[in-house]
């Protein structure tokens, strides 16, 4: 290869020392793709994509027999999933049709005009959006201070009530970067958050509430999502509750009755006969033992799939879910912390090619 590097022409004359390359190899000629950074999409390109998307949307609506005017994104997703069924696990890898603004990342437009002069006055700081944001926020802070001074001069300083911060959080660094379309460093981000906190902490900070809300997000509390079903009553007036559980490949449904002697029936068979091994019966015992209700509930379960241990785990989850209806909220929280209400995510790991099993490699032979 070294021999194929450009033949140099020796020029005669006064510039005899300079060597000029006549030709280069393919290796040298190849563009360094990584060095140019992410692809730049021109505005025209994006506009064209949007037009194509809308056209495609109308075509799709016609194909599916729906009204093109009222064809929403959800309908598009359903239609694509129907027309191009995919078994891939990663949702991002499946075929999708979304608005170009969601697919192509937002990019900054050219920051300078035809004469080369930048539009923004902070362009030459390098981080123009960040500094302009800090500038704005500090301006608001000064406003609030001025307002405060005015009020304290008139002795009308309102008392600051503690605002409940539990339901909201600040934007994360990545979210802020997305908003500003430029990279931030950790320190920058910290400074900004500190400024916001200072602004909020001031007594008259409520004036700029709208501005602050741009940078905070709501955090839904954990438990609010889970709805505990109320008890149902069957013909004889006995309270009962149903629960479903899965583990590995086993699926189970359990019906727990309010009265009883602690008998459990699985697929019509008593647990003593269905689960011969003590370990499985201990798994079934665990929810009742935890809640101190061992001999108080009768249970009827159905289970299918999986092996012996998986079926036991599935029934345990199902009974725990069913027992939630019989028990106070505090105890439900205890159950959740004990891990009774969590579906065990462990499943059989896939076998990889080139290995004997999921982790086991073939016997290594030195030669």
């Amino acid at each position, binding site marked *: 290869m070294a021999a194929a590097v450009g033949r140099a022409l020796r020029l005669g004359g006064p510039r005899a020392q300079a060597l000029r390359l006549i030709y280069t190899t393919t290796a040298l000629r190849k563009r360094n793709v990584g060095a140019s950074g992410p692809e730049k999409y021109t505005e025209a390109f994006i506009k064209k994509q949007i037009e194509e998307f809308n056209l495609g949307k109308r075509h799709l609506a016609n194909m599916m027999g729906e009204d093109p005017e009222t064809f929403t994104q959800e309908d598009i997703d359903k239609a694509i999933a129907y027309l191009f069924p995919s078994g891939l696990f990663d949702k991002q890898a499946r075929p999708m049709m979304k608005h170009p603004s969601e697919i192509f990342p937002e990019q900054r437009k050219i920051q300078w005009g035809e004469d080369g002069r930048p539009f923004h006055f902070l362009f030459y700081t390098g981080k123009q959006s960040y500094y302009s944001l800090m500038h704005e926020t500090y301006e608001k802070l000064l406003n609030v201070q001025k307002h405060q001074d005015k009020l304290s001069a008139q002795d009308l300083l309102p008392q600051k009530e503690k605002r409940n911060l539990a339901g909201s959080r600040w934007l994360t660094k990545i979210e802020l970067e997305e908003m500003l379309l430029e990279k931030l460093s950790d320190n920058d981000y910290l400074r900004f958050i500190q400024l916001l906190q200072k602004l909020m902490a001031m007594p008259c900070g409520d004036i700029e509430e709208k501005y602050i809300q741009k940078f905070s997000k709501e955090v839904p509390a954990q438990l609010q999502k889970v709805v505990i079903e109320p008890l149902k009553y069957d013909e004889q007036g006995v309270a009962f509750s149903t629960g479903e559980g899965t583990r590995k490949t086993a699926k189970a449904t359990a019906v727990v009755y309010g009265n009883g002697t*602690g008998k459990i029936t699985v697929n019509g068979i*008593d*647990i*003593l*006969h269905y689960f011969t091994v*003590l*370990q499985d*019966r*201990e*798994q079934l*015992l*665990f929810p*009742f*033992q*935890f809640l*101190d209700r*061992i*001999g108080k509930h009768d249970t009827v379960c159905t289970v299918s799939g999986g092996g012996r241990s998986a079926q036991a785990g599935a029934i345990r989850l199902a009974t725990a879910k069913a027992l939630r209806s019989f028990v106070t909220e505090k105890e439900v929280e*205890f159950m959740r*912390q*004990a*891990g*009774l209400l969590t579906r065990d995510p462990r499943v059989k790991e896939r076998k990889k090619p080139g290995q004997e099993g999921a982790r086991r490699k073939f016997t290594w032979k030195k030669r």
Partner: protein
Amino acid sequence: MLRSLRGLVCHPRKLDHGYALHTAAKDCLSSLASQDVQALAEGPRAVFYTSENDPANHTEHHEGRHYSIPLEEVKAVFPHGLPPRFQQQIKTFNEACVMVRKPALELFAYLKNSNFAHPAVRYVIYGEKGTGKTMTLCHVVHYCSRQGWLVLHIPDAHLWVKNCKELLQSSYNKDRLDQPLQASFWLKNFKTSNERFLKEIKTQRKYVWGKRDSTEEGKPLGEVVEQGLARVRNASDVVGVVLKEIKQQCQLGSFRLLVAVDGVNALWGRTTLKKEDKSPVSPEELTLVYNLRKMMRNDWSGGAVVTTLSQTGSLFKPRCAYLPQELLGKEGFDALDPFVPILVPNYSAAEFESCYRYYRHCRWLQHPRAHTAEGQEELRFLSGSNPWQLERLAGPL
């Protein structure tokens, strides 16, 4: 207090055998438990124990309670009858305590009221695995021996149809096969349990054992048994002779006979034995089984036949089979028909309580949580009130 402590448990403990009873509050529980144990040891034992040692006097009043058999009597009456785990328990606790249960009481009632002039009634004790069929049989055997009956106790008929090292061709009948080892073993135990009868019963015929050995008419049965023990080759024939003699003489009415067979379904099933030419042996071809089947027929009077079905030692039968129809097969069912079936269920609540108290009294349950009410509930749940399961569970605790 316990509730708040339990709330600190973040993740489920690994549920190993026995560790299901661990909680975060071990310390306070142990202090409570020690007080509990002392209190109960001094308290009344009347709930689980009765001092009535004669089974004849056991009534419903005693139901669920344990009574103890003196150890000498155990050696005399049960040289070979008790289940092996129970024998270990006797050695550990230094006493043999048997629970009085309803099936046994039922049997006693039948035996007391049976008319011995009529042909012998056959009773079949059946039930799921580990519910106490063999123990019920032993209870009945004890009762009968106390009453002075002659007890013909075959501890496990399955032993005669499998794992036989030596099979000899029978000298009496060319088609049949002898089992010297099993026969001599059984004769030895039979001798221990029925000493006095062996002196009283006399032979009614002359038996020739070989060129030089013979037993004259009118000799006590003990001699025949000695003959069998001395000449192991003829042991199976001796067993046949003993059975025949006893059956004949029982009809005369001088004594009552109880034939107690455990695992009677072995007599009509299949065997795992093979002849020298690798062909399978059917049960009729074994002398012992053939003679025993003759005893099972109800063509004699003056006694009773109490048998137990057992899946545990049975060959080629599925694990969940426990009904007479399933375990005996058509042949066995027809042979035993008509019989009185007696079901032995799992422990009832009172019986379970009694067994639990007994274990606590013997200090067999050492785990601190086992002494609490929740521990008892857990044991009840995990064992499903099955005596066998409970015994196995209580072992490591």
